[in-house]
């Protein structure tokens, strides 16, 4: 096994599609949470091969996309300072802030660097004690253990020149916000496999119960998605709800305990604003007071920076599954990956970018 190619065989995919087709008796709307799953669906054309009654709407599971505008502006403000080395995953560099993006800061002489892992930023801080090294910590539960370890290491090593601009978000509160919205049309969820690899799926059980909605923890390869859809459709057709696990090769109910322990040692739960959605209570992570010295927000006094979302970008509707990217008047014209209006067109997990790259200009 290589755990990739085996899950991409056409005859197996066709068998799943046939089984889904035979099982469906009425229309259903499913949401895949994670942007990585959106890309698999669109890249392999799975959404178009599903029976007509099955509608896949794309969820908010793209951390770059849901990072609020003011957080980008704060990052830009820090990165512009002399003496600062600003580090980030590559996806964030082209996300437009109110005036500019991080890539432009770099082009005009700012020391902005792409790192592969937050530990690379710690290494930079260690080897450049004369620089203020800041890491832009954006992500869901999947990325939180890596970022927690970076802070923990910096703390252990006494690196006073390392700090983190934290914009961490949590999936279950966002799912609840979607389910509780009066205009919600999602009837079942494919939960994000790698989020659950870290957190397990106990948190989803009360949610599935309260809203009587099926949730299937699902992986990222084509057969994973197809099996996840089949499992969800079966629950819908049988009138069942609850949480089932398609991605058992990487996920168990309890999740990764050592990872959860360090995350809660370093971070605490906080309210957080989501781009296009607004503030969701207890939906994010912030550094605990003990690690306040490593918090870039206070260290560089950028909490006061606030911003309004641009009116022309419909990211909020796209992120809540109320609008398809091609329904946006700016899609592919005034908004492209080269000149994006909003983050979903930039990120490798953004729904708008997926539709653009795979030429989805209409339904």
């Amino acid at each position: 096994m290589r755990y990739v190619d085996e899950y991409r065989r056409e005859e197996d995919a066709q068998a799943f599609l046939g089984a889904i087709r035979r099982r469906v008796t009425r229309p259903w709307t499913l949401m895949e949470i994670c942007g990585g799953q959106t890309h698999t669906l669109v890249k392999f054309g799975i959404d178009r091969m599903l029976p007509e009654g099955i509608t896949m709407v794309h969820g908010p599971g793209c951390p770059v996309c849901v990072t609020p505008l003011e957080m980008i502006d704060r990052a830009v403000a820090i990165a512009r300072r002399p003496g600062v080395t600003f580090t980030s995953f590559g996806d964030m560099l082209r996300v437009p802030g109110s005036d500019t993006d991080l890539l432009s800061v770099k082009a005009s002489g700012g020391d902005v660097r792409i790192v592969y892992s937050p530990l690379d930023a710690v290494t930079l801080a260690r080897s450049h004690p004369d620089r203020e090294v800041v890491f832009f910590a954006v992500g869901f539960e999947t990325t939180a253990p890596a970022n927690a370890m970076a802070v923990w290491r910096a703390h252990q090593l006494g690196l006073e020149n390392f700090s983190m601009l934290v914009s961490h978000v949590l999936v279950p509160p966002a799912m609840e916000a979607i389910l509780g919205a009066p205009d919600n049309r999602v009837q079942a969820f494919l939960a994000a496999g790698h989020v659950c690899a870290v957190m397990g799926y106990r948190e989803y059980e009360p949610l599935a119960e309260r809203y009587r909605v099926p949730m299937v923890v699902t992986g990222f390869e084509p057969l994973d998605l197809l099996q996840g859809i089949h499992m969800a459709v079966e629950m819908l057709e049988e009138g069942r709800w609850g949480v089932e696990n398609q991605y058992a090769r990487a996920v168990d109910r309890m999740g990764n305990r050592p990872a959860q322990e360090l995350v809660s040692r370093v971070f605490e739960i906080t309210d957080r604003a989501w781009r296009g959605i607004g503030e969701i209570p207890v939906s994010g992570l912030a550094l605990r007071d003990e690690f306040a010295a490593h918090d870039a927000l206070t260290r560089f006094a950028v909490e006061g920076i606030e911003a309004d979302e641009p009116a022309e970008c419909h990211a909020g509707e796209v992120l809540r599954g109320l609008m398809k990217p091609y329904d946006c008047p700016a899609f592919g014209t005034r908004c492209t990956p080269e000149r994006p209006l909003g983050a979903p067109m930039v990120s490798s997990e953004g729904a708008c970018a997926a539709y653009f790259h795979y030429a989805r200009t209409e339904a």
Partner: protein
Amino acid sequence: MCLGVPGKVVEVLESPVGMTMGRVSFSGIVKEVCLAYTPDVRPGEWVVVHVGFAISRIDEDEATRVFDYLEEMNELDEIHIPQPEAGLPGPPPPSRTGEGRPPRGPLAGPPPEPPLTAGGGS
């Protein structure tokens, strides 16, 4: 961003500072990965790696469950729908051990270049 890549652990490097590192092979490309969150993993086992951290050990037995599910589903369908399905051509499924499978699945991938230029959004 929650991209997780399966890789095979080549070597576990015990660290004196309490952060276990290891070398993990991704189709032959070997990278250093933090194994602190999968403390029991041994060389030869597979992990899901995200931003330089192993976040989960891959369970080999569970990994073939998708194919068992497919077979069970087909058997059930044969009971309910006795006539052969037109949508299911091709030979019977091959063995599920994973060895000897073709290196690339034939499921259609994306077009090579994004052909969309200006003028979309209709």
